[in-house]
């Protein structure tokens, strides 16, 4: 994780107390907490997914969080974009999120970017990251993020929600399928997606779990699996997804591309 992988930072007395309950998790421990402290996570999109994802990343002690969103809060965002209060309507999402993160955990370094997701700019941002968390609400942006993460070899934790349902998968370039392997053609964009706030909160929590696992190096990430969550049925079920050896984005990457499928 970053330049400090071989020599992670020490934890202060206050940090030892703040993170006590998760340091007690055997697979995290002191070493895992130090890795979290030296990790850099990018959250692309500070909406229904990005708000809860960024605050839980901060609560977990991720050292640096980069927030990317050019939008401002509207009243209709407040059922799910949980970092905003009524008085924050009209404010930039990244600034409100930064303020909330700092209130919760002043030790976290927060970078804010109010830019459109664009290939060149984004590739540089991804290069500095350890993990990229998907908080976007459109496919165009997701496929750009996917390409940049593949080019830079960075993990990308995709999620999408609608109503009480959602899907999540973790993309580790070369190890499992990228988003383009799974979704070969661009799906239509949807302007206004119906959604209960608890749905992105649930998916964002899972994205944070995946991030913490990747940063600290334990558990089995959702690589090569798409987890579907159906809140109406209250079912959680994953389906295997394989690399496409002809994938225009990641097909040429070395790795376990033996899964040629049918």
């Amino acid at each position: 994780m970053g330049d400090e992988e071989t020599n992670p930072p020490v934890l202060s007395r206050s940090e030892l107390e703040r993170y006590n309950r998760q340091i007690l998790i055997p697979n995290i421990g002191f070493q895992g907490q130090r890795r979290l402290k030296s990790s850099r996570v990018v959250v692309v999109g500070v909406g229904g997914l990005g708000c809860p994802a960024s605050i839980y990343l901060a609560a977990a002690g991720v050292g640096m969080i980069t927030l990317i969103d050019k939008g401002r809060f509207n009243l209709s965002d407040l059922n799910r974009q949980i970092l905003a209060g009524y008085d924050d309507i009209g404010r930039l999402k990244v600034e409100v999120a930064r303020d909330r993160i700092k209130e919760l955990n002043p030790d976290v370094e927060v970078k804010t970017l109010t830019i459109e997701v664009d290939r060149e700019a984004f590739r540089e941002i991804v290069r500095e990251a350890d993990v990229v968390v998907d908080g976007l609400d459109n496919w165009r942006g997701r496929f750009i993020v996917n390409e940049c993460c593949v080019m830079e070899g960075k993990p990308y934790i995709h999620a999408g929600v609608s109503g009480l349902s959602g899907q999540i998968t973790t993309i580790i370039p070369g190890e499992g399928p990228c988003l383009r392997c799974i979704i070969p053609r661009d799906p239509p964009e949807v302007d206004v997606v119906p959604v209960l706030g608890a749905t992105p909160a649930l998916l964002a929590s899972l994205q944070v779990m995946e991030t913490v696992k990747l940063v600290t190096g334990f558990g089995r990430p959702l690589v090569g699996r798409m987890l579907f969550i159906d809140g109406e049925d209250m079912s959680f079920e994953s389906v295997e997804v394989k690399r496409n050896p002809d994938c225009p984005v990641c097909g040429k990457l070395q790795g376990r591309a033996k899964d040629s499928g049918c």
Partner: protein
Amino acid sequence: MRVKVRYFGVIRARLSRREEEIEIKEGATLSDLLDKLIGMYGESLKELFEVGKGEILDPSFIVTINGALARRGMETRLKGGDSIALMNIICGG
């Protein structure tokens, strides 16, 4: 021969089914299977998963065979025991 079909997302909600085994003729293709499902479930499935000229019309709907995208599209031949997943991916964030 029999194949296993698993449903996810909107398809599951419409059919109120998680998975089932379907009997299809030897050498059947993915297109044959989808035609059979449309025959079984009628318009409720057809409007979600219309099969066009050898490809699925709506890119939000994805079909995998034993985890992999069907590389020969709708003409991919199935084998007995194959596990086919029909899913739709959603974009909200």
